[in-house]
């Protein structure tokens, strides 16, 4: 999360009424395409209306599509959702494909997500089989019986052996050899 998102309203991914489990209800209720018949900034919108809009409306019978020509104004998409959200999207100088892409987004999303940030990119009803982590999971059982402070527990790990240690080891080995030699001669 970056600092620019810190004051956005935080939320989790959710769908209304378990949408998509068993049946799916498209959440986009109504979409209004506003455009100008003359202005160049609405050209992509006009092209979209000419070529793709009829197919879009046929494929999505659950969405009411309105067209609103307005003179000398920029092209705009206004979307209304079943939960009451409305989303306003400026389409100034958008190409036909861009408008198609944005309409697909509006069609597929569950509500207006503007002004909110998602805390997690996933949602699950069963977060963990093992159960949530606690400080006591994977804990060494030896610690249950320890009395603190404990010299052995606090000792540093992965220390290379010193020359003194090696010397003592050599001495012990030498002693053993001497013992073996003594026992062999007897």
């Amino acid at each position, binding site marked *: 999360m970056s600092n620019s998102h810190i004051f956005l309203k935080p939320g989790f991914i959710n769908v209304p009424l378990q949408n998509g489990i068993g049946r799916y209800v498209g959440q986009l209720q109504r979409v209004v395409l506003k455009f100008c018949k003359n202005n160049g900034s609405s050209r992509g919108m006009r092209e979209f209306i000419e070529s793709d809009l009829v197919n879009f409306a046929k494929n999505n019978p659950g969405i009411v599509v309105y067209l609103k020509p307005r003179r000398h104004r920029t092209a705009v998409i206004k979307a209304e959702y079943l939960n009451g959200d409305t989303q306003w999207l400026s389409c100034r100088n958008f190409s036909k494909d861009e408008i198609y892409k944005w309409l697909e987004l509006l069609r597929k999303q569950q509500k207006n997500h503007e002004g909110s940030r998602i805390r997690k990119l996933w949602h699950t009803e069963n977060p963990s089989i093992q*159960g*949530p*982590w*606690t*400080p*006591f999971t994977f804990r060494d059982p030896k*610690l249950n019986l*320890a009395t*603190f*402070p*404990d010299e052995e*527990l*606090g*000792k*540093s*790990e992965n*220390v290379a052996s010193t020359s003194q240690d090696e*010397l*003592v080891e*050599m*001495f012990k080995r030498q002693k053993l050899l001497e013992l073996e030699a003594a026992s062999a001669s007897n």
Partner: protein
Amino acid sequence: MSVLKRVQQWATFARIWHLYDAAWQNPFYSAELLKKYLMGAHKPIYHPMNDCGDHVIVINSSDIALPGDEWKKRVYFHHTGYPGGASWTLAWELHKKDPTLVLKKAVYNSMDGNLQRRYTMERLHIFPDANVPSNLLSNISNQIKQLRPKPKRLDEYTEKEIQEFPKLIDLPKNHILR
């Protein structure tokens, strides 16, 4: 929230008390280690916005080991705010005044200067020796491993151990040890 979930929440966010023996340890490297425990950064649930830091009790802070000649060269600056109120204290002088301060400042400086830093420092308990109040000692359930081995001084060996230590050479009787 059901009873089970509430207990699960308490268990996950339970604060653990750790013990750290600072004897013969570099306070600046130790600070980087202790910082993680104080902020809770060693936990899988860590996030800067959740409050999951642990308590750390540090003992034997009077026996810390500064590297090189830092006792003589490291300077702690303080300004009272009044004109001429600046003062510079060497590390050995500061350590003489309060044997916990060098480590405390090392931990404080190792953390980012944000609003949580003062509250995180509240969870650090430093003691110059091994005498920890029993009410704090009873909380401890983990000991943090030291960063470097603690050397054993000659006077800490028993007479028998010294006698049995392997001799490299037999010095002649008339050899004079200086």
